[in-house]
Each structure stands twice: as C-alpha cells, then as structure tokens.
C-alpha cells in the first residue's frame, strides 16, 4: 500500500518536473515560471548556482536535478530540510531514501513471494519508499507547481455543489494534477471561448473542482470547490454538469455509467487513468492549450443537450478562505521582512496554542460522510489545537464553515485570540494531498526556529486521517511517523492483531518518537491526539501555562543570569 501511494505522488512530481523543464526551455505554450523567488529558494536546496544566471537556465538545471532524484544513489536533496537530528536517525536506521524509483522498486521486490519474510525489514524498506514520497516525489510536485503556477496566498472562494450554475456551462475538473486544469481555467476565461458559450445559449463558463485537482486550482485561482471525493457522482446527478474532466487518482469507475443517465461527458485525460465508457482526450503537455480548447469546446457544445427537467442544483455553497502555504503562514505570522514561525512557537510555548494537528485525507463511504472530520476538528479547536488540513478533509471543513476566520468562535480562548489577532481561521487549508509536504516543511521550520526541542519527534504536533480509504494515506501516514509525527487513522486499519501491529502501534515510539494508532470514534480520536500533544508538552516542560508575574525592582535585583 505504501508503494502504491508513493508511486502515484511521485509520478505526479515527475510530471511536474518534466513540464518545468519544457517550460523553461520555452518549448510548451501556456506554461511560464510564475514564482521566481520560489525558484531561487528551491534551486539553493539543490545546489543549483543562481548568481548572474537567467531564470530560465536556473529552471532547466533545477528541473534536471529534480528528475535525477528519481534514480540517483545518494540521499534525496530535500532531506536536508529536515532537522539534523532526524536526518541522523534515518542514517543510523539505514532508511535514508535514495532515488524515488529505486525505493519503490525495492519495496515491491521485497514483497514478492519468497523474498523478505521479516516484517520489520519489509517495514524499513517500505519506510524508505514512504520517505521518498514525502521528502521526494510529493515535495517535488508541490514546490515545482508553486514555481510554475504561483505559490498560494490566502483567497476567498466557495465550496459545495451549489457552486454549479444553472445558466452557465459547468465543467468539473477532478483528480489530482493541476497541469491540465490550470490551462483549462486559462482557456475558459478567454473571450472567444465565452462568446462560443453564449452562442450555445449559456451565459458563461463555470469551472468547479472536485478532489485534489480542485484544491490545486482553488489555492492558486480561487476556483470554487464542487465537493470532495464522495460527491463526484452526485455532481453529475445534479444534471447540470456538461463535462467532468478527470486526470488521475480517486476517480470512480462508475462515473461514465452515471453520466449516461444525463447529458454529462466524462473525459479522461491521462493514460494512467482511463475508464471504459469515457471519452479520452490525452493531455499533451507539448500542446496543453490544444487539449484544453478541445475539452472546453466539447463541454460548451454539450450545453444545449442539458435536460432542464433533470436539473436540480442544491443551494448550499459556503464561503471559505484557502491558500495557506508554508510561505504564507510564515508571512502572516512574522510579516514581510521578519517572516518567521517564531510567533507560532511562542504561542505554543505560552500555551495559547496547545499544539497542531494535521487532519488530512479522504472520504470513506463506509462512515458517515464528513461527520468524523468536522466533529474531530471542532473538538480540537475548542481545546486550543490549531488544525492544518489538506485534501478532502479540508473540503469537509470548508462545507462546515471552519475555513473562515469567523470560525474562531468555535475555538478555545487561546487559539481564538491568535486567530483574531492574525486574521486566520482556526483550520488552515494547506492544499492537496501532495501538499502534505508543506506540513513537513512547516514542522521542520518550527523545530529549526527553536524553543520546542530539536526534532519533529517530540513536537506537540500530530497527524490524523479520520476517513481515509486510499493507499496514498498509508504512504503519507508512514512518512509522517518516520519523520517524528504520531499518526491516528479512523475507519480501520489493514494490519491488526499481529507482531506488525506491535511494531506500528507501540515499538515505533522507541524507534521514531512517533507511532500509529487507530480509532474510529471522533471524540476518542480527539482524546488520543490531545493526550499525545499534552505528553509532548510535558516532555518539553511547557505543559503548565506560565503565570504572568509583574516584577518589581526588588525581584529584578534577585534575578540571576
């Protein structure tokens, strides 16, 4: 399961690196370098010289170095972002990941019948593959996408099926990669395309997102979210979707069958994710504008076929604020010139923020949709725990109004004070599932700033995937645990009742200062997560809120330095 998740995130990262290379060479229309500052920052990590060089040349060299990350024999470049103590631990345990492809292939090879029969060894090999995902493939995807499409900044948008419009051509972009959807968004705003839509009786073109493709275009363009994973069939059932354009991951095979009941065209765009019954328009990065034009035109031409008697768009569409990249959080806390996590660390140390929990991951149709996410988040923020979120979990929070600064009313007094002062919601939307790498970077930054120990392991921070269902969640969970953040899963777990569970649920505490746990009930989940946070606070010596004492002159004279 780890290799499945690691492969797909890393394949995503490779695709973005290839596009960056072509874009920097000027070989593909539609793509440019949008964030030069980020390019220079990432170039430094990869030891790419930047002085007196053209931006395009730096980007070419960076893209090539990123592509080398998939096959090289040395440790991955982004690993140096982790705290030194964690890097040393990985080295000591022999789990420092090398080339991403190598780690995945080795893990697959080890699980072949007759190969590794030692579950601890298999898990170590799997851990290398997971780390190669989090600190490799996923981080490459996130960072290079920021370079190509811009680093997200806070913006307002809307979420839920009510974002679909009765009088416009509705196109849903669904899946996980922004490479094509970015261009679809661009093409749909062109006047000739809007005129073409009007010629077919529509008032305009409405792009809405589903799953993590939605998160990608939301974070950078404010494109509204139609819904999360489980709502993909239901979007078609509104009867108002002209085209559902899917790329990779989390796409139901049932979509074309449900679409047959309406006029909706389901369009697959990636050879890795074809579906019987769908129209396939291969995304060609060499001419993405052509692919996007074809798709948007097909949707527009489908608009007159809509059966208005079958159309029923729910009213629900709630405002949200998204776009909390690592850089944005840094900036919001410390300002333009003194961007830093220091204020966050101080707030954690003085107890106004008890800790940080990343609630991430999927929906699972086996549990009450969105319920566990929302209940858990409300429980945590009421206890002064700041929640950071990605993926379908973030969309659940959006639908519940938790991604608005006004949701500070649900937070405990300490967290509410921070939210009101900084102007942030108590639940921060950090992006798509590859953007969990942003959380790794943030955790490393919090450690490097100082005051909360010298490692991610031991921070009052943990992760949770309450409604998980995908192999990707397992890969993410494992790289978080191996990076030092305890991880709690809901629903159920593929491994229980064996030596393996002892390893994952107990022994990992000694190995990684973090471990796995499983609990389906959201209230009990909150208890476990707060217990982990409080335990970390106790070990750091910050469990008790420091009393504010007004020193008089005599007391000051007694101070010893």
């Amino acid at each position, binding site marked *: 399961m780890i290799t499945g998740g690691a492969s797909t995130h890393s394949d995503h990262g490779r695709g973005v690196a290839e596009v960056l290379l072509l874009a920097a060479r000027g070989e593909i229309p539609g793509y440019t370098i949008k964030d030069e500052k980020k390019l220079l920052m990432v170039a430094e990590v990869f030891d790419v010289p930047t002085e007196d060089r053209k931006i395009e040349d730096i980007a070419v060299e960076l893209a090539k170095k990123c592509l080398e990350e998939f096959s090289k024999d040395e440790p991955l470049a982004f690993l140096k972002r982790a705290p030194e103590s964690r890097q040393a631990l990985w080295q000591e345990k022999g789990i420092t990941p090398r080339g991403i492809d190598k780690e995945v292939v080795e893990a697959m090879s080890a699980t072949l019948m007759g190969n590794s029969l030692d579950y601890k060894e298999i898990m170590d090999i799997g851990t290398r593959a997971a780390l190669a995902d989090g600190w490799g493939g996923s981080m490459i995807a996130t960072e290079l996408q920021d370079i190509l499409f811009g680093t997200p900044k806070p913006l307002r948008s809307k979420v839920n099926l009510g974002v679909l419009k009765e009088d416009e051509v509705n196109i849903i972009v669904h899946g996980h990669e922004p490479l094509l959807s970015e261009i679809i968004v661009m093409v749909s705003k062109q006047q000739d395309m809007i005129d073409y839509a009007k010629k077919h009786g529509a008032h305009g073109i409405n792009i809405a997102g589903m799953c993590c493709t939605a998160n990608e275009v939301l974070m950078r363009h404010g494109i509204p979210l139609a819904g999360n994973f489980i709502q993909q069939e*239901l979007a078609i059932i509104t009867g108002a979707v002209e085209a559902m354009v899917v790329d990779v991951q989390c796409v139901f095979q049932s979509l074309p*069958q449900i679409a047959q009941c309406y006029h909706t065209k389901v369009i697959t765009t990636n050879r890795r994710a074809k579906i019987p019954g769908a129209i396939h328009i291969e995304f060609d990065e060499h001419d993405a504008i052509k692919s996007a034009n074809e798709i948007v035109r097909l949707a527009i031409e489908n608009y007159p076929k809509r059966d208005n008697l079958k159309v029923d768009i729910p009213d629900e569409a709630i405002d949200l604020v998204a776009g909390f990249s690592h850089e944005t959080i840094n900036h919001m806390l410390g300002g333009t010139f003194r961007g830093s996590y220091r204020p966050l660390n101080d707030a954690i140390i003085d107890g106004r923020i008890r800790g940080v929990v990343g609630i991430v991951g999927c929906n699972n149709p086996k549990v009450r949709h969105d319920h566990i996410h929302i209940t858990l988040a409300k429980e945590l923020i009421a206890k002064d725990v700041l929640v950071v979120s990605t993926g379908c979990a973030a969309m659940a929070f959006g639908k519940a109004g938790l991604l608005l600064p006004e949701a500070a009313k649900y937070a405990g007094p300490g967290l509410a004070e921070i939210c009101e002062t900084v102007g942030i919601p108590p639940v921060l939307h950090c992006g798509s599932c590859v953007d969990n790498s942003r959380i790794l970077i943030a955790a490393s930054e919090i450690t490097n700033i100082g005051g909360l120990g010298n490692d991610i392991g031991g921070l009052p921070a943990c992760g949770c995937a309450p409604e998980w269902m995908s192999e990707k969640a397992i890969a993410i969970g494992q790289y978080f645990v191996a990076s030092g953040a305890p991880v709690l899963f809901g629903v159920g777990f593929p491994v229980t009742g064996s030596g393996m569970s002892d390893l994952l649920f107990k022994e990992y505490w000694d190995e990684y200062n973090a471990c796995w746990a499983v609990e389906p009930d959201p209230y009990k989940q909150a208890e476990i997560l707060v217990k982990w946070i409080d335990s970390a606070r106790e070990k750091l010596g910050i469990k008790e809120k420091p009393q504010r004492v007004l020193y008089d002159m005599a007391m000051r004279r007694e101070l010893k330095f």
Partner: protein
Amino acid sequence: MFEEITVCPATQAMLQKAKDENIKTCFDRVKDQRAVPLVIQGDAVGFAVPDPVEYRRKRLIQKRVCVVPQQMLLLPKTLCG
C-alpha cells in the same frame, strides 16, 4: 432521510435525487457489504472484500482467486433509468 449517511445537506439532497431516479451511488454499493464479484484480467475472478480481515482470510484460502482490497468496492454496479 440521508442524515445517517452524511452531514452535508447538498449531499443528502442529491442522494434523494439519485434514489428518485433509481441511480445507485457509492453509498449503495458500500451499504451492500457483500463481496462484489468482478472480472479482472482475463479469466481471473476477483472479489472486492470490504473487511480487511476477511480480505486476508480469502487471500489465504483462495489461492486461485484474485482478491482486491476494499477500495475496489467503489467499482460500479450502477443502475439508472
């Protein structure tokens, strides 16, 4: 009516619409907790098994049967019309 399935009112409304139009969604497929037979890769017959314990048991006892994990339950048995 669909409150026990989802807390999202828009989702509830669309589930009602799906029911009215006799369309099965992923919720219906999962509610039906039986193993769903499906054919994958030529003659190999697989079963989507929702319960991980059951999944392991089947894998152990049915060597000739390809068993796929719970995610595959999202494969369709969609009816409409």
